[in-house]
């Protein structure tokens, strides 16, 4: 379930090798000199689709590797890495760069997957409430983000994004609504994940560590406050009057239903309301109120349960 993976290899980890020698294995090389970093080179490590995927920069201090491990090794990042493919991807990168990438320290990590959903992803966002210590930011129509300085949770419409970027969607998920849930770690991963040692690329395919990461992904979702309620039927609402009628129906049904109507009609009976037209108007009013009582106000589903179950299943059987 790893997508973006940024790593860095110190000169020491290169066993005394020259970081700048990596230029031999890169394309689109650029070079420069800066006061802070000294002489540097950067280039691209192309993926199997010949797209510039990983950006590799080499300095006197070591090497920085930034990109998406899913795009690098899988047909696109709509596919989700399993633990075994993470290992194969790291091994492939080591072969291509002629260095041991497994020893590199992780500086940024995204844990994510896609969930096929019964509704468009944006329908679920209103059901995801606040999360302690995180800012909830609906950043765009199709995106919901929870943010701290070192960690982010992002929900967005992956099918839409894949279509826009012409990324390959797995054939068995073509045509599905795809909710993407990403947990992104920015910096200080060792502290954030409460590990005794710096997190290396090799740790990402260690069974226990990988399982722990996936559980973090689940736990971060679990601590979002969920707004559990049935869905109001909005599909037929086209005008303000229709919305008002639906709201009225909801108030009646949730505020006592038939008993409330009977009580109100008894008050009408006991009053001088409607004057001499009382019998006819009473009949009309009761018919109208009873109609509200039968108006479907909810489709019966607490839709966020679908996502809760899916996250739980993914975390339980993450391989």
């Amino acid at each position, binding site marked *: 379930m790893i997508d973006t993976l940024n790593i860095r290899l110190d000169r020491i980890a290169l066993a005394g090798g020259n970081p700048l020698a990596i230029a031999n294995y890169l394309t689109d090389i650029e070079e420069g000199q800066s006061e802070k970093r000294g002489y540097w080179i950067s280039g691209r490590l192309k993926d199997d689709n010949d797209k510039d995927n990983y950006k590799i920069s080499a300095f006197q201090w070591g090497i920085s590797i930034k990109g998406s491990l899913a795009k690098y090794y*899988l047909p696109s990042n709509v*596919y*989700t*890495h*399993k633990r075994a*493919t993470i290992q194969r991807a790291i091994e492939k990168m080591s072969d291509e760069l002629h260095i041991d990438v497994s020893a590199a320290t992780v500086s940024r990590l995204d844990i994510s*997957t*896609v*969930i*096929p959903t*019964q509704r468009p992803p944006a329908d679920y966002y209103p059901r995801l409430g606040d999360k302690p210590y995180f800012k909830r930011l609906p950043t765009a129509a199709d995106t919901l983000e929870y943010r701290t300085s070192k960690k982010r949770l992002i929900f967005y419409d992956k099918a839409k994004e894949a279509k826009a970027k012409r990324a390959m969607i*797995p*054939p*068995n*998920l073509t*045509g*599905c609504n*795809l909710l993407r849930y990403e947990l992104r770690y920015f910096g200080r991963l060792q502290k954030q994940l409460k590990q005794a040692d710096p997190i290396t690329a090799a740790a990402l395919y260690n*069974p*226990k560590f990988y*399982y722990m990461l996936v559980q973090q992904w689940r736990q971060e979702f679990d601590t979002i406050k969920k707004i559990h309620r049935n869905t109001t039927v909005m599909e037929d609402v086209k005008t303000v009057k229709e919305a008002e009628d639906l709201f009225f129906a909801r108030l009646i049904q949730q505020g006592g239903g038939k008993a409330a109507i009977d009580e109100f009609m008894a008050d009408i009976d006991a009053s001088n309301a409607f004057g001499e037209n009382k019998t006819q108007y009473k009949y009309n009013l009761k018919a109208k109120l009873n109609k509200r009582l039968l108006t479907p106000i909810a489709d019966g589903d607490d839709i966020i*349960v*679908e996502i809760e*179950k*899916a996250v*739980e*299943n*993914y975390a*339980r*059987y*993450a*391989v």
Partner: protein
Amino acid sequence: MFSYYALFEQLPDEVKQAHGIKMDMKNPRFDLIKASGEYPPFDTLKNNKGMLILRLIDPRGIINSTDQRRAGRALQGRRGKDTINFTSLFIPELPTAEGEPMIGFGNPNGNPTLKNGNPNPFAGYGNDGFLFIVSPDWKRIELLVMPDGNLTTNPAAKALADGVYDSIVQAARAAATTFYDYWKK
């Protein structure tokens, strides 16, 4: 999307008796009744009568993984004297109604060799993914093979439960032909 469909069933006692099949075995036996499409590794699992049998087993002690994520069940086949661990059978909690079939997923072990060093018939098929439709009484298991579907088994299981593949599954069922006729007089 699906290259192969297979219907496995636990045979009724009278049918087992007619074929001299042992009854009340610890690990339930599932016989391949109907199939559509092709799945070449299965050809090697046929016994000398032409039957293809899988057994439903408890994977503890066989599959090396943490208790939390180990599948509740697994399917095992035989090729001659070799035991073939066909797949784990994960049954996630998906919103199927009570009395409706359960949805499961798995994938083959694509290692080149078996534990005893013999060639693995599923070598080269490790990228495939499996979906299962299991009757609530565990008497009937339908298998759907997704070529290169290994990385999408979990979301595909949810899509199957949501009804996304209903028409494709119906077509696969309709196209299935008898694999071995246990009821032939």
